[in-house]
């Protein structure tokens, strides 16, 4: 990671770009959490937006409606989201492959529908606005730069934690279960438990990204629960390369940049998203990062 560049960004870029970078960091954490499931666990989920949104909503409600401080709200939010992940995991892991995909899709659709319907709680289509950002150690995060640095710290920590996770012996077990579940069971590993724990951990970090998301936007709306949201995250993971840790970060950044720039010129973001999906899956199925890696290796070999 190019540390100096990331740290010094606010010193040479304008607010617009700093904010964009913050959004990329949030999307990166979200994509990394999804990748624990998709890339390392072999479980493709189309409902990961649930964790981001629910965490965001809980924080929004706790602070705006119940007047809780940000620390308590954050704690309740993450605890609630993680509990939800545990519950959803039990249901979703009754199936695998396509069945798992369909259940995760269905569960997030339920939440999406509820968010619109329960307008006395969620404010329905209006969303919850007028939220505030927390003030860790009394420091205000309202400026673009200060929020960015906070997001950078959180994102770096998240990346580190997930890197430790995937290279730990548990991580090796997870990858083993992804590749040969029957063999792993015969060796004494408990595939269900390994998957469930991973599911919960992925939900936890999804929730963390949700907190940053609601702090950044100071607003939350049911569209964050839509299939499009989950699909964008999935695209980021797959486009970047699900077999690696850096891939989803690159992919999430790309999807976000594309969305930002494209929507300035083209109204049809969804159509573009669909086309990009088709392109990536057909042309670069393992993702950009492995693809570039191969390219670099190929160039190195060629220059000898």
């Amino acid at each position, binding site marked *: 990671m190019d540390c100096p560049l990331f740290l010094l960004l606010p010193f040479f870029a304008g607010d617009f770009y700093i904010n964009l970078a913050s959004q990329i960091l949030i999307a990166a954490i979200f994509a990394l959490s999804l990748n624990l499931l998709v890339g390392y666990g072999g479980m493709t989920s189309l409902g990961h937006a649930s964790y981001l949104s629910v965490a965001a909503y809980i924080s929004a409600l706790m602070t705006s409606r119940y007047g809780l401080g940000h620390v308590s709200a954050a704690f309740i939010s993450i605890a609630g989201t993680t509990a939800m992940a545990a519950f959803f995991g039990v249901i979703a892991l009754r199936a695998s492959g396509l069945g798992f995909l369909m259940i995760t899709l269905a569960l997030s659709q339920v939440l999406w529908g509820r968010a619109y319907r329960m307008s006395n709680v969620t404010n329905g289509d209006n969303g919850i606005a007028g939220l505030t950002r927390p003030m860790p150690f009394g420091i205000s995060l309202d400026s673009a730069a200060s929020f960015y640095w906070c997001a950078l710290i959180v994102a770096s920590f998240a990346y580190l934690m997930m890197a430790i*996770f995937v290279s*730990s*012996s*548990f*991580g090796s077990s997870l990858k083993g279960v992804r590749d*040969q579940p029957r*063999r792993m*069971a015969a*060796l*004494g590993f408990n595939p269900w438990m390994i998957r469930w724990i991973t599911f919960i951990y992925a939900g936890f970090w999804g929730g963390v990204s949700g907190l940053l998301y609601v702090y950044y936007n100071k607003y939350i709306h049911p569209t964050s629960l839509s299939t499009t949201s989950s699909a964008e995250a999935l695209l980021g993971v797959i486009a970047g390369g699900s077999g690696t840790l850096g891939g989803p970060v690159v992919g999430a950044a790309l999807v976000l940049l594309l969305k930002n720039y494209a929507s300035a010129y083209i109204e049809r973001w969804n159509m573009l998203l669909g086309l990009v999906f088709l392109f990536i899956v057909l042309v670069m199925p393992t993702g950009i990062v492995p693809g570039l890696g191969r390219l670099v290796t190929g160039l190195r070999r060629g220059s000898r």
Partner: protein
Amino acid sequence: MTPLISNHALEIINLNKAFGGLSVTQNVSLAMRPGERRLIIGPNGAGKTTLFNQISGDLRPNSGQIKLFGTDVTQFAPYKRAHFGLSRTYQIITLFTGDTLEHNITLGLLGLRPSRWQMWRPLSFYGDLATEARRILDAVGLLHLAAHPVSDIAYGEKRRVELAMALAQRPRVLLLDEPLAGLSNTERSTVKSLIASIPRETTVIMIEHDMDTALDLAETVTLLNYGRVIVDGDRDAVIADERTREVYLGV
């Protein structure tokens, strides 16, 4: 009722399994003493691998019991049976093809250890696992390939890795599903001598479709056909039995 002296390593009692209308295991009963070497033979479709799948827990029988050292494991999930000392190899290679040989064996060793739940330390932290993995690879003559990915090595070598992985956990009961299938003559004799050198603490059951190749490894033989036990007993007695000839010639 005979007194239940459970000094059997593996006991199968009246096992039955049917898929829809098709009966694949019919009233199969077997008892194996610790350290015994048993060969299960029978024509294609006799239900040998299905029987193994029920012993390992991949398949649930419709009725009957499976006991490991006196404990009823019929309701146990496959991973739990591994903790009871059961280990197996598969007909189809189920190795981790993208990983090195050493990593494959290491995973085999990790399965029974509490450290498999460790979410902090990398696998490389456990130096003793690596040492043991290399020792096991050496025992099967593959130490020189330890750093190679499984996808790179030959079929015969892969079979040896499968065997090594199953033996890594020092199992009490080992199921070998056609361990000699598809091997050349030299590879075959290598694997056979490896099987012959398995310590007596391990009870071994082997499936082989081709009778002749594995006979000298067996002490007792069970002949299956259409899911039923046809003949069962000491090797020489089973070979000499008329019914054995019937089954193989009549097919």
